[in-house]
């Protein structure tokens, strides 16, 4: 959480820095030859690279053991990787127009790419250098390698800022054969997997923070250089290949793991992300604010638990196969969604927010009360349904280790593969529905419901559809979650608690990630899960930081980390003041609104 917030503030800080220094840069740029900048970058990055083979401190007290000479470890790996990247990124900047064959690296100009990468390296390396002094008590813990690492990373940044701006419109991509495109997509996705794997398996908070800083700034640099745009154009042109690549990468993650330690983290992220995606259909696509969404996850989990032969269940003798559990779980969730949605979706959106919030609370209370004391014994009350048996699907027992392709899959590994399948299904549904008659109807309702209805869109029906679909997908995730955690308790499904998923975290994953997009909630959910998981010192402050992050995000980047094109326009509408044009042109341009506004007022007056 905090990293994401510090990330976003860091970003604006960086933007501020960029604009502030633009004038300075121009002045310097006239004096200093661009070659000076490039030399500094090369020198700095090379020295930083070299420093990773030196010791950075003489004590093993700093996590990751940075005392070894000749063999980079811990945070040094990040510095090593970023230094190499920076050196590579110099290639398109070396001669005007770029070294032949490297121009693709910076479609919009290489200066921004270099600045981003140099900054990423400096932030990540600088953070370690400072952390060494901070945690171990002073610069006495520095050795030569520390000084070299810190100074050279800074040198590279200095060099990057001496470079003149060379932003330009990206040249059109050269036509490449289909097979080459597919290869590129696969390679990039696999690289992405390695980066993600590194992040998920970071062993201590310093490494994770270094990773986040590096990845964040580097990502910004790549985006600014136009590489991301080019890659997303590539994926858009090769949807099936991208889908296969991502699926393959996701599956191979589990084969990179030697134990279940990080697979369980990945399982939790997947559950969280799946539900966040479901919520994104409701919030992002249909524009309905659901504050009790986690309850639908709970409905699915409880329903599945009740019919799977759970020991503590009233219906312990009912043991249905999983496909039946899933069907029932989804059906009950959809039903709950329709029951809540039907009366409220006719009203304006704010009511829905509160009613869903209330529903979340009611769900928790009801599950608590069906304990034999305050109501019939169904759910075992606050203690919850425990002893939910492991999943069994086509004779495959998810509780036992299986050897697949010579790799032993543990319990969490089994669930991981199933969850990848589920999230793939959710992504598939999300993408297809978004790009269809239904998706267009949702967008239209979000933009102007009255106009949408006048065009024949049955607003209520489509809102109800979104609400029911969202509830069903959450319910589906819930049916698996119950088996995975083997216990479901009412307190797992509250509005806010320190552990995701809960309604507030889900909403945050969507909002911070990017409403209406697929990758946004995935990124948001990963960050929101990993940050508290990796950074133990946040433990009791994460809800606070997370609340602050929501406020800051709405102020600075309301469209989220991965913005949807349309959303971005929506949120920055007023800045371009175009919407006012619509409104005001009525008030004035037409010098005679047929009095309809006045009539509305009158109508109100007459009723009062």
């Amino acid at each position, binding site marked *: 959480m905090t990293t994401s917030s510090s990330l976003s503030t860091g970003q604006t800080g960086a933007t501020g820095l960029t604009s502030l220094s633009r004038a300075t840069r121009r002045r310097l740029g006239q004096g200093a030859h661009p070659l000076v900048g490039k030399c500094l970058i090369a020198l700095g990055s090379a020295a930083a690279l070299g420093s990773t083979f030196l010791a950075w401190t003489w004590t093993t007290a700093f996590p990751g053991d940075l005392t070894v000479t000749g063999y980079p470890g811990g945070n040094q790996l990040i510095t090593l990787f970023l230094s190499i990247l920076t050196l590579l990124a110099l290639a398109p900047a070396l001669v005007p127009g770029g070294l032949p064959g490297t121009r693709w690296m910076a479609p919009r100009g290489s200066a921004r790419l270099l600045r981003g990468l140099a900054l990423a390296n400096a932030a990540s390396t600088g953070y370690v250098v400072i952390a060494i002094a901070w945690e171990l008590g002073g610069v006495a813990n520095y050795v030569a390698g520390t000084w070299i690492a810190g100074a050279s990373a800074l040198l590279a940044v200095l060099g990057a800022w001496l470079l003149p701006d060379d932003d330009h419109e990206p040249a059109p991509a050269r036509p490449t054969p289909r097979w080459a495109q597919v290869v590129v997509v696969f390679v990039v996705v696999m690289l992405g997997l390695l980066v993600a794997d590194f992040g998920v398996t970071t062993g201590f908070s310093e490494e994770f923070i270094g990773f986040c800083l590096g990845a964040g700034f580097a990502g910004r640099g790549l985006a600014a250089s136009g590489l991301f745009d080019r890659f997303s154009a590539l994926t858009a042109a090769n949807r099936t290949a991208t889908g296969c690549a991502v699926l393959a990468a996701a599956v191979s993650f589990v084969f990179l793991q030697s134990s279940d330690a990080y697979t369980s983290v990945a399982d939790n992220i997947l559950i969280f992300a799946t539900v966040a995606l479901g919520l994104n259909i409701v919030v992002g696509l249909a524009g309905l604010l659901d504050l009790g969404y986690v309850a639908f996850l709970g409905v699915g989990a409880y329903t599945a638990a009740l019919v799977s032969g759970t020991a503590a269940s009233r219906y312990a003798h009912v043991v249905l196969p999983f496909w039946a559990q899933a069907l029932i779980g989804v059906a009950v969730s959809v039903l709950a969604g329709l029951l809540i949605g039907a009366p409220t979706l006719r009203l304006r959106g704010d*009511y829905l927010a509160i*009613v869903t919030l209330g529903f979340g*609370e009611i769900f928790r209370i009801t599950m*608590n009360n069906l304990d034999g004391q305050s*109501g019939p014994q169904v759910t075992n009350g606050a203690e919850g349904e425990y002893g939910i048996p492991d999943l069994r699907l086509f004779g495959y027992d998810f509780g036992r280790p299986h050897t697949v392709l010579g790799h032993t899959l543990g319990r969490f590994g089994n669930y991981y593969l199933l969850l990848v399948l589920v999230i793939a299904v959710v992504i598939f549904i999300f993408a297809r529905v978004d790009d269809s008659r239904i998706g267009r109807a949702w967008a239209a309702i979000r933009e102007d419901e009255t106009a949408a209805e006048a065009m024949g869109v049955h607003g209520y029906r489509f809102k109800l559809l979104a609400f029911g679909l969202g509830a069903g997908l959450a319910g589906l995730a819930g049916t698996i979650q119950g088996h995975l955690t083997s216990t479901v308790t009412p307190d797992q499904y509250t509005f806010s608690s320190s552990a995701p998923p809960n309604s507030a975290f889900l909403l945050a994953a969507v909002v911070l990630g990017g409403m209406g997009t697929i990758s946004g909630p995935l990124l948001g959910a990963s960050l929101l899960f990993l940050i508290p998981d990796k950074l133990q010192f946040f433990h009791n402050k994460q809800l606070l930081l997370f609340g602050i992050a*929501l*406020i800051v995000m709405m*102020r600075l980047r309301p469209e989220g980390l991965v913005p949807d094109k349309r959303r971005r326009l929506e949120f920055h509408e007023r800045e371009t003041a175009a919407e006012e044009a619509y409104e005001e042109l009525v008030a004035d341009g037409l010098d005679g609104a047929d009095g309809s506004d006045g009539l509305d007022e009158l109508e109100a007056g007459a009723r009062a």
Partner: protein
Amino acid sequence: MSVTVLLQLVENGLVLGAMYGLIAVGYTMVYGTIQLINFAHGEIFMLGGFGALTVYAWIPGVAHLPLLAALPLMLLGGVVVAVAAAVGAERLAYRPLRAAPRLAPLITAIGLSLALQQVVSLWYRLPGGGNAKAPVAFPSFGGKAFNLGGVLVQRADLFTVIAAAVCMAALAWFVARTRSGRAMQATAQDPDTARLMGIDPDRMIVVAFAVGAALAAVAALTQGLRYGQISFDMGFVAGLKAFTAAVLGGIGNVRGAMLGGIVLGLAEELSSGILAHFRDTAQYGQAWADVWAFVLLILVLLLRPQGLLGERVADRA
């Protein structure tokens, strides 16, 4: 079921409803002026309680005063803290988003609500060394309850009802009779034309936030006195209920908020009380009170979405 029991339920419901009503006013006033569900209002209520407690616990001597003498000081403390928090939130969090799409301020409000809860839970310290992670004790009236023909009226109940009545009368006077009150109504009805009258809408919005916060602080005091404790997370359910009350009464309507509060309080007490009274349904009583309150909200939205004192439900897209 005897009349006395029924009357006792009615008494409980009225008192509870008076408290809901006091909080609901804040929702209604803010909604009426800027169409924002101030999700953090429950936390403003909670902060009011802690403000009052701070005066009691930390200002030397206050704890030794007779409670009735200490109450005005505590009330002042609560009101100051709640109003400061609400006005600060308006200024720093909401105002910059005034032109943003509706979702932005609403999400901000959610963030604010979580952050405020956590600030209290993490950093509030009692003189004795306790913290506010769990409910903390609040002074309460000693002494026996008044017995009115079998109906027990606790001292705190009396205080609640009187406080609510005074506040509502003062509010009614403020809105209907004072220049600022009229200006606030004007801003709610037509902000642009209000500006043409020389009214600064920003000021009026601040007034709406402040008045709502002050009444929420009064409500928090009554809550503390009745239950003998307050907690950092009490704003969540109270806020939810109060919002329900505001919708019941017709959101945007100040008198409706009080009426809605009382209807909700009565419904909650009567439904759970009557259910608890009979053996067959006893188990669906107290533990389900929140559920019945919520069912009522759904019913009202279904049958009369504009609320009991129907202000218009603005559904223009």
